[in-house]
């Protein structure tokens, strides 16, 4: 079974500026992946979604992509 990425790398706080990290959890259309696909623990998934939304607002990540 795949383990939580954030637990493995000891990441306690997901930063919205860490675009390269956030991009790992987006699909080619720049939509967020679900928890079944990311295999991330519930707390991290919540932090991740918050960070992605902040990055989108700050135009670091797109809302939609081709």
């Amino acid at each position, binding site marked *: 079974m795949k383990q939580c990425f954030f637990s493995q*790398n000891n990441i306690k*706080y997901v*930063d919205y*500026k*860490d675009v390269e990290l956030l991009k790992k959890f987006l699909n080619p259309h720049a939509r967020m992946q679900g928890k079944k696909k990311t295999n991330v623990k519930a707390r991290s998934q919540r932090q991740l979604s918050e960070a992605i939304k902040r990055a989108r*607002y*700050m*135009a*670091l990540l*797109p809302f939609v992509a081709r």
Partner: protein
Amino acid sequence: MSKKAAVAKNSEEKIYEVGYHILSSVSEENVPKEVEKIKAYLAKEKAVIISEETPKLRPLAYSIKKAFGGSYKVFDKAYFGFIKFELGIDGDIINIDLGMRNNESILRYIVIKTVRENTMYSPKITVFSDKEAKIKTTFKEDKIVKAEKTATIEEIDKSIDALVSEEV
């Protein structure tokens, strides 16, 4: 607010971060002046700066328009920077937020609550190390294959020589 909640609020560290986009129409020499303006808002609230990044011109993921006296201007690039700071008990984040909002040369900003530790994770390093590791392993495999091939050619040569010497 109950007494307990008030006590908890006071005992908690008030660490915030301001991320901002400065307009790309501001010339590069004037960008530090804009940063000084932002720092002045923080200084008014007696904030202690923990870390900061100087604004760098970067492309935006989508174009943003800002109103200038009745007409819009569209921006595709902006100087992005951030400041992490700690507020004292008497400091109020609302005043910093208001200052940022009223600043004409800021395209967009965000104020968030964060933690003191460095929150940036650098995946690039691990990704590169993985790739390097893969390249190394593939090179090794190639070498092994080549070595085997050369060995076989030598063996053939030797066997041919042996055959020729036998005939003579």
